[in-house]
């Protein structure tokens, strides 16, 4: 194996052990997060090797990976910026926040990755922080009541190599770091 060797393989075993014997396939979601934490996205190699670890085909792994939006099967920026534009956020100006993020990050129309490759921008569905609308997540850390001006500041911080402090909880260094937490490998 190329990806699942050494420490990464050890982490994979820890993940698989969470599930009952014979039910190893349940580990597929955290294993995809683990792969994503190493590579910053989920590669073909990762899909194949997770299949080998679990005794299922690459196609079966890909079927799962492609179903969920939080697994990135395409090139992804160091940071993932999600702007909620669902109803409650939309009513309070989320479309302008999204437009500000797109312009500030330099994401071409119809695209998702900024031209400098730093930021992947997503117009997101409800993020479950409706009382703090408009809601934004950077690497799944929440920023509350974001105005277009605040959005530009957040992007500027990312561009200068900083990670802005979230409204609650602690900051993730990157999308890859967040993926490691999502794999349950960091308390």
């Amino acid at each position: 194996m190329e990806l699942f060797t050494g420490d990464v393989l050890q982490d994979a075993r820890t993940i698989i052990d969470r599930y009952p014997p014979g039910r190893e396939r349940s580990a597929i979601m955290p294993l995809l997060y683990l792969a994503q934490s190493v590579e910053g996205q989920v590669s073909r190699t990762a899909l194949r090797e997770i299949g080998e670890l679990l005794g299922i085909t690459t196609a079966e792994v890909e079927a799962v990976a492609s179903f969920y939006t939080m697994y990135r099967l395409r090139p992804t920026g160091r940071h993932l910026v999600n702007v909620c534009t669902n109803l409650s956020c939309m009513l309070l100006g989320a479309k302008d926040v999204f437009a500000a993020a797109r312009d500030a990050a330099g994401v071409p129309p119809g695209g998702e990755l900024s031209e400098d490759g730093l930021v992947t921008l997503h117009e997101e569905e409800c993020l479950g922080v409706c009382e703090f609308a408009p809601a934004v997540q950077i690497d799944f850390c929440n920023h509350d009541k974001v105005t277009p001006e605040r959005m530009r500041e957040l992007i500027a911080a990312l561009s200068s190599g900083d990670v802005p402090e979230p409204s609650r909880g602690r900051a993730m260094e990157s999308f890859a770091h967040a993926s490691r937490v999502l794999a349950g490998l960091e308390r």
Partner: protein
Amino acid sequence: MEFEPRLTRNWDDPSVIGLEGYVAKGGYEGLTKALEQPAGDVIQIVKDSGLRGRGGAGFPTGMKWSFVPQDTGKPTYVTVNFDESEPGTCNNRQLIEAEPHRLIEGTAIAAYAIGCHLAFIYVRGEYLWQGMILQRALDEAYAAGYLGKGAKYDLDIVLHRGAGAYICGEETALLNSLEGLRGQPRLRPPFPAVEGLYASPTVINNVETLMNVPDILTRGADWFRSLGTEKSPGTKMFTVSGKVERPGNYEIPLGTPFRVLLEEYAGGVLGGRELKAFTPGGSSTPMLTAEHLDVGLDYESIAAAGSLLGTGAVMVMDDTDCLVEAAARMVRFYAHESCGKCTPCREGSWWTTRVLQRMQDGLGREGDVQLVKDMGTNILFRAFCALADGTASVINSSLKHFEDEFEAHVREGRCTAGLKSEALSSTGVGSDAER
């Protein structure tokens, strides 16, 4: 409103996020009490309390537990649904941010009641921090001997993260996801109580539901019934968002009039404007209007008014908001989240999104309103699970109350509702300003 809060009574004490603080407030006494009696008695108390599932369907919790057969020779499982994703809903999130041990205790009681020794908590992927809080609380509970092999009742709880799929809040889709499959719903029967996780008897409960259980054990079924209505006992968390002065999560007794929630708790409509429409239980529950201000917020009263209690997610729109735009955005959500299994849902939601978009863009055609109406009729009750019905609810309820506004969009090629308002130019709120 005067009453003793239940789920939120410790919210002003930040120490209850930890085990020590939670125990100091009487935490884990419900579990201790449960373990002192036969499992059947625990189920009976929860039955007697009349507790109903808070995740949307409102099914009686004790009855759900009693459906689990004990003689199959297979293990039984408790699976906690913390995949909170219904647009407008975030009370589970705040409940966990404040007091994660209450969920662990409720889960342990449910596990004891059905003889389960391995439980799963399915956490919404985007709830990164909340999952960390919960994992820390689990670690504490293991260290303190409430969980694990050496505990008074042998129970392991595994936290499993979702990855951004609304459909996984549907219980059978959640089970598929947990088994490592695509999160698509299963045909029922067999129901999860008989064949759920790993084809074994399984109880799936919502976070808020289980967080009610510890107090029911310590204070009793009659105490639980002392708030709420006869058929909808207890309190419920409501999330109020959108155009209100004080958006937030509020606990109120079931049956409280919507007016009280809106005015006393949420401070009324933002800027003192007129209420135009609201969802009582999330975007998949039919919208209601200002004429429903005095409807009681309980399962029966909301059903009588033509909607559903859902997850208690109230999203408020005022008289400057465009209902075509709102409906288009909500339907687009369902198009994005449809798992693709059933044609009426998969194709219907995308098609309706396109038609509503062209109405919004001023390109609506004659007959479009009827077309959208037909879509609503042809989606409702014609798919495998309730996701499609959510799409239909948006379409049908917005047309029921605001058909004129849709017609006006087609006729005038623009929104007339938003432009009537002088507030738009001053606040620049939302996309109405761009129109």
